């Protein structure tokens, strides 16, 4: 059987900076994420960055338009040939 290379979306969570671009680009509002600010002062200077807690994709609503893949500046969303679940959810441990 021929595989559809665009069967679902793959989140590469370690690349995601929680920048919200994909969440805001999605025309059908089917992406969601939660993140929290992490402050690191170990180097003597205060550095803060966002840490992703949760990322969800509602495939019941997603229309596979690919805008989220195109807009992500960090290559954290990619096309995948895996068949999608109804609801995808990623949570940090």
């Amino acid at each position, binding site marked *: 059987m021929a595989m559809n290379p665009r069967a679902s979306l793959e989140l590469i969570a370690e690349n995601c900076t*929680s920048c919200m671009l994909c*969440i*805001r680009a999605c025309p059908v*509002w089917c*992406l969601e*994420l*939660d993140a*929290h*600010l992490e402050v690191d002062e170990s180097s003597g200077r205060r550095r803060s960055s*966002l840490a992703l807690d949760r990322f969800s994709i509602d495939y019941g609503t997603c229309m596979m338009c690919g805008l989220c893949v195109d807009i992500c500046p960090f290559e954290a969303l990619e096309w995948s040939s895996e068949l999608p679940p109804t609801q995808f959810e990623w949570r940090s441990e």
Partner: protein
Amino acid sequence: MSWRSELQALRDDGFDVLDWLSATEEDDEVVVTACLVRSEDPGSFRLVRSPAPVESVVDMFPSAQWHERETAEMFGVTFEGLNAAPLLLPPDSPAPLRKAQPLPARLSQWPGEVDPAKPRRRQDPPGTPWR
């Protein structure tokens, strides 16, 4: 030239088929657009545009009736001389294609409203002027 005379002139010029008619909301006015096609050369067409309200052209192009009735109820505009009996919507329903009309699917919370980096600043989704 008025809407009617413009369409009449094109019809006299051989653009004898009303292919399509609808409207768009642009800034503060609703603009009605019609597309006329030459039946002898279906590839050639002309667009005519005019701010609403305009006169009905059903006597000139009977096929305009469906489009004018649909445009009248969807955009809440009048076509002078048209019997605009409701076509698809229940009587007295608001014109659903006007930008001020809330889209039910967009009344829920937008997942992009809060940026975790700036949680105090909230943003409205694009294309929802009723918020």
